[in-house]
C-alpha cells in the first residue's frame, strides 16, 4: 500500500493522499464484510469484533503518524492493522487460525501483531494495554528514537483502574503517548450514560493535566488533523495528549450480540453519517474522484480481499507439534 509520505498538513494533502484515505476505509469495510461472511461459514471462530462505522478514526489517526510509531489497540483491531499496512492476507489467515497468520494462528481476531510494522498488538483485556503504552513510550524516550505511541481504546475502558494509573503515570513522566478513545457510546450493551460520571470522555484528562480534545470520529480529515496536532505536541517533548473520537459502531459488539440495548432509530441516524459516504461525496464534489474511479478502487479492493481469503483458505493449519513453541522466547536478546 502507498504510505503517505512526510505527513503534510491536512489542507496540503495531495489528491493521491486523500484517495488513499478513502481506499483504506473502503478496504477495511469490505475486508470486515468478508470476515463476517467467513464467520457465518464457520471459517472464523471465537470472537469477531467489527470496526464497521468507525473506519475514519483509525485511518485518519494512523495516517498522521510515522510508519515506525508504535500502535497498541484493543480487540477491535482489524481496522487499525489494515490502516497500518499489515498484509490483508496474513490478517485473514490469522482469523482463519492458520500458520501463516500474523500471529501464527495463536492470537486470532483479538490479537493481531506485526512488530515489523510497529503494530504492537490488539489486546482483549479492557484497558490492559494502556500500561504497556506507558512502557513503550518510556523506552522510546530513553532510546531517543523519536518514535511515539498511539494507544487506542474504547469509552468502556475509561472506567478501569488501569486507565487512571496509566494516564497519571504518562503525565507525570511526560510520556509521548496519544491516548485515543473511540467513543461509540457503548461498552458492549451498556450505555456510557449509565456508567460514566463524566460522559464527555476528554474532560477526564483534566484530572491528569493532559491536554485533550473531542473530535468528530466520522470525519477522516478531522481525525488526521487532530492526530497530527497531538503528535507534534508529543514530539516537542510536552508529554501525552488525549483524543476523544465521537463515533458509532454500525454492527453488534461482536458477532454474538443480540443488540437488545439500542434502538434501530439511533443506528439509522448514525448511518447517515457513514464516514465513507461522507468522505467519498466530499471528494467527488471537490472533483478529486469520480464514479468510475471509485468503482475502479472498489474492484481493486475486491481483488485484495478475495486474494486474502484465498491465501487464508490455502494456508496450512498450525502443526500440533508446535503447541509448545513460543511459550518462552526463542530468539536473540535485544540488549547488547
Amino acid at each position, binding site marked *: 500500500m502507498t504510505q503517505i509520505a512526510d505527513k503534510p498538513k491536512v489542507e496540503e494533502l495531495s489528491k493521491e493522499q486523500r484517495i488513499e484515505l478513502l481506499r483504506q476505509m473502503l478496504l477495511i469495510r469490505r475486508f470486515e464484510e468478508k470476515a463476517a461472511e467467513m464467520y457465518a461459514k464457520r471459517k472464523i*471462530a471465537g470472537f469477531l469484533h467489527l470496526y464497521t462505522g468507525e473506519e475514519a478514526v483509525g485511518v485518519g489517526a494512523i495516517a498522521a503518524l510515522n510508519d515506525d510509531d508504535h500502535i497498541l489497540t484493543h480487540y477491535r483491531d482489524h481496522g487499525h492493522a489494515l490502516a497500518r499496512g499489515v498484509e490483508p492476507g496474513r490478517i485473514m489467515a490469522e482469523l482463519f487460525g492458520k500458520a501463516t497468520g500474523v500471529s501464527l494462528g495463536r*492470537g*486470532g481476531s483479538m490479537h493481531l501483531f506485526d512488530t515489523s510494522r510497529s503494530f504492537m498488538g490488539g489486546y482483549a*483485556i479492557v484497558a490492559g494495554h494502556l500500561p504497556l503504552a506507558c512502557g513503550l513510550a518510556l523506552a522510546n524516550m530513553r532510546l531517543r528514537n523519536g518514535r511515539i505511541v498511539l494507544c487506542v481504546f474504547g469509552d468502556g475502558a475509561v472506567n*478501569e483502574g488501569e486507565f487512571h494509573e496509566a494516564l497519571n503515570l504518562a503525565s507525570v513522566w511526560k510520556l509521548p503517548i496519544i491516548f485515543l478513545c473511540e467513543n461509540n457510546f457503548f461498552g458492549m450493551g451498556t450505555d456510557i450514560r*449509565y456508567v460514566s460520571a463524566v460522559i464527555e470522555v476528554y474532560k477526564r484528562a483534566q484530572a491528569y493535566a493532559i491536554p485533550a480534545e473531542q473530535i468528530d470520529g466520522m470525519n477522516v480529515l478531522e481525525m488526521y488533523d487532530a492526530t497530527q496536532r497531538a503528535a507534534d505536541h508529543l514530539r516537542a517533548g510536552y508529554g501525552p495528549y488525549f483524543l476523544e473520537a465521537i463515533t458509532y459502531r454500525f454492527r453488534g459488539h461482536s458477532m454474538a450480540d443480540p443488540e437488545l440495548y439500542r434502538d434501530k432509530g439511533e443506528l439509522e441516524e448514525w448511518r447517515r453519517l457513514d464516514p465513507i459516504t461522507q468522505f467519498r461525496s466530499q471528494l467527488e464534489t471537490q472533483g478529486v474522484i469520480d464514479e468510475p474511479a471509485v468503482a475502479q478502487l472498489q474492484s481493486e479492493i475486491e481483488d485484495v480481499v478475495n486474494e486474502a481469503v484465498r491465501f487464508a483458505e490455502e494456508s496450512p493449519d*498450525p502443526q500440533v507439534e*508446535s*503447541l509448545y513453541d513460543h511459550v518462552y522466547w526463542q530468539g536473540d536478546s535485544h540488549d547488547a
Partner: protein
Amino acid sequence: MPELTFREALRMSLREELLANERVFLMGEDIGAYGGSYAVTKGFQKEFGPERVIDTPISESVIVGCGIGAAMGGLRPMVELMTINFSLLAFDQIVNNASKLCYMSGGQIHVPMVIRMASGAGSQLSSQHSHSLEGWYAHIPGIKVAVPYTPYDARGLLKTAFRDDNPVIFIEHTALYARKGEVPDEAFDLPFGQAEVHRKGKDVTLIGYSGSVYQCVLAAEQLAQDGIEAEVLNLRTLRPLDIDTIVASVRKTHRAVVVEDDWRFGGFAGEIATLIMEQAFDELDAPVARVCGADVPMPYAKQLEQAALPQPSDIVAVVRGLI
C-alpha cells in the same frame, strides 16, 4: 422431572432468590440491558428493576469491592464477573478483603456474597479469554468454591451459595450453559463438600469437576467398551472438598485419574492427587495420574486449542497405562 439447560437452572434459582429476599441484588457488567454475556440474567432487569439488577461500569475491582461492602452493610449481593479472566482484576479484593474480613475483624464482620463467573476454554477465544483458574480460588482460606457440572448441580449449588454467609465463588463452565438435564421445579439445596458419584465403577476412579466431568464421562463410556468400569466423581465444590468420597472410591478401585482443564503444573489436580496419596497410599496400585490442560497460554487455532485441552482419548490412554 422436567429437563432444563444449565442456564435455565441458574435462572430459576436466581429468580427465586430475587423474589424471596429483597436484600438480594445482582450486579455486574452487561447483566441488565444486554441480558448477560451468557444470557443468564436475560430479562431480569425488566422484571426486577434497575435497583435489583444493576449494570456496572467496566471496573472489576470496585464491582467486587462494592459487593463486599454491600454484604458488610446487610445486603446479599450476587456479583457477576462475566468471566474468570476478568476476575484477575478483582483478585486483590477477593484475596485481601472478601476472604479475610471475618478473620481479621475477630469475627465481627461477615461477607455473604456470591461471585459468579464463566470459566473454561474450547471456543477459540485465545489466551486472554480461556482461563480455568478455579484452583486458585480454592487455595484461599475464607472462600468457598462451587463448580457445578449438571443443571441439577447448578440449581442446587446456587441455592446453597445464597444460604451461605461467606463469599462463594461460583464457577460456570461456558461449555455447560446449553447442556440439558433433569431439574426439579421445587427449590432444593445441594450441600457444599459433598461430591457426587456420577457413574459407578470398580476398576478406576475418574475425578472431575465443572466441565471436566464431561470428559470423564466420555472416557468412561469408551473404557466400558473394553470392559473397564470407571467410576466418575463430580466434585461439585473444590472448597470445601469432599475428600472422603474420593478416598472411598479409591479404596474400591485402587486407581485414580484427576482431570482438569487448567494448566497441569501447579494446578489443583496436584492437591487432589496428594490428598489421595496422603490418605490412601496403601490402597493405590499405581500413582494417581493427572490429565490436565497443556502448560501453554491458550492458542486460538482450533487444532492447537484442542491439543491443549484434556481429551477423553487422553484419559483413556492414561487409564490403560494404569491397568
